[in-house]
């Protein structure tokens, strides 16, 4: 079933057209990867899925983006949308607070005040991000004392904390070492049964390792969007083939 439908989307930063006529269906309980060279629009599309582009001045979008067949730019409040569509950023960005407060921030934002409930959510979210055992004895310690990989997993736990349906990840492992990267990849594969996951990555091996569908972007257009296995073994488009075989990009 399609969780997200993107229909004829064009996006402009002022005069510059960053996305050209995008059409895409993103399925539930799958990992969808966006690949392509820098500046091809993959991150822009990802950010527009939970309206983080709203924050940038001069952005204009036309076309429709539907989450469960509801237009996210017309019929959903941005705050509600962002609760349902969580985001993990390129650089780990835990808040300068304790580990506990980092995870509890989301649910508190959405009105949960009861201490026992918050305790439960924090534990579940950290367990889901496979780091409960690592941090359970230092929940009160600052999150900034964690390693980069742990910080990124904490951010994933933080995204879980508001119980989202979709999780967007913008090159979540580009700042991490191979072992932390592996942990996060395993985690994503592990949780996809409960979520819809969209990941932007520069790393094509990463896309082949974890994703079910892959979209190849170039100059603001989707060149090819298909099953990952097919896209990497028998690409239909010459440009895709050139990119994945490393002839450019």
């Amino acid at each position, binding site marked *: 079933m399609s969780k997200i439908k993107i229909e004829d989307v064009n996006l402009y930063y002022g005069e510059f057209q960053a996305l050209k006529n995008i059409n895409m269906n993103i399925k539930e309980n799958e990992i969808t990867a966006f690949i392509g060279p820098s500046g091809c629009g993959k991150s822009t599309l990802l950010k527009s899925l939970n309206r983080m582009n709203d924050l940038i*001045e001069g952005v204009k979008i036309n076309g429709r983006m539907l989450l469960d067949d509801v237009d996210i730019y017309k019929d959903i409040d941005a705050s509600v949308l962002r*609760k349902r569509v969580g985001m993990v950023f390129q650089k780990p960005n835990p808040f300068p607070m304790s580990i506990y407060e980092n995870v509890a921030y989301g649910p508190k934002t959405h009105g949960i005040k009861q201490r026992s409930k918050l305790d439960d959510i924090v534990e579940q979210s950290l367990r889901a991000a496979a780091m409960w055992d690592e941090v359970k004895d230092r929940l009160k310690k600052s999150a900034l004392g964690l390693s980069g990989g742990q910080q990124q997993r904490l951010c994933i736990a933080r995204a879980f904390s*508001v119980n989202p349906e979709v999780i967007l990840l913008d090159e979540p492992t580009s700042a991490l070492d191979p072992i932390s990267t592996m942990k996060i990849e395993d985690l994503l594969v592990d949780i996809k049964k409960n979520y819809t996951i969209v990941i932007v990555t520069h790393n094509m091996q990463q896309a082949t390792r974890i994703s079910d569908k892959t979209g190849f972007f170039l100059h603001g257009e989707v060149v090819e969007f298909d099953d990952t296995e097919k896209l990497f073994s028998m690409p239909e488009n010459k440009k895709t083939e050139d990119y994945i075989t490393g002839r450019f990009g």
Partner: protein
Amino acid sequence: MDVLRRRKTISLILKLTVWFCGILTVGILIYILLFILLRGVPKINMEFLFGEYNSDTLSAFSSVVTTIEMVIISLFISVPIGVFCAIYLTEYAKRGNKTVKVIRLAVDTLAGIPSIVFGLFGMILFVKLLGFRASVLSGICTLSIMILPLIISSSEEAIKSVPDMYREGSLGLGAGRLRTVFRIVLPTAMPGILSGIILAIGRIVGETAALIFTSGTNVLKNPTLDLMASQRTLAIHMYMLASEGLPHSKEMAFATGSILIIIVFLVNYTTTKLAGRIGRLSDE
């Protein structure tokens, strides 16, 4: 070989320069402190600290009370206004907004104006036009305006230095702008805002020119919290004693200076402690 030796010489010279500058700065500071404290502290006695003012005791008690009163109330007025103004400028105003440019220009200009101009302005507006007379209230109003640019620009810097990724993280969880500002941005910016407040306290405590015209140089026998009374602060007390002809007034000016230094030290110390505490609170 030659190049190596030259590098060594240059690095030695630079090292010596750095040490010299460091020692010079600390040395001057210690010299000033000792100069004032050694002459002033021995003159401090109970009469001077807590007694009634007369030409004999030259007591600083009423001035100490007024100084503290002015610091607290002025901050109470200008810190919220200044911080909220900074929040508007950094978080809400659109880039290139005309109003913002005007506000920034005004803030920068006000920050560079000598305090005596504020004094004259305060005299015309508060003392005369609004009819507050020469009073602590007029002084407080003038001081509040005077420190406002300082609070705004330091808060603005502090808020700007909060990385955008914290804001994104918060907004990405569905938090609104307001919540993001109050729960994430302000706590992170707090140490910077507090250092602006410390500077502001320093300016208030050391201010004379702006106050001579507004709260006056009058000194009361006993301390009062009456806002409509005309009463001097410690800095003015010191200024007046230094220029008065009484035989022991010079000595007592140093004693006043000593109290001033001690108060500033205590205030800075507690504020820094407080900043640390707040930092740790947001850590928890």
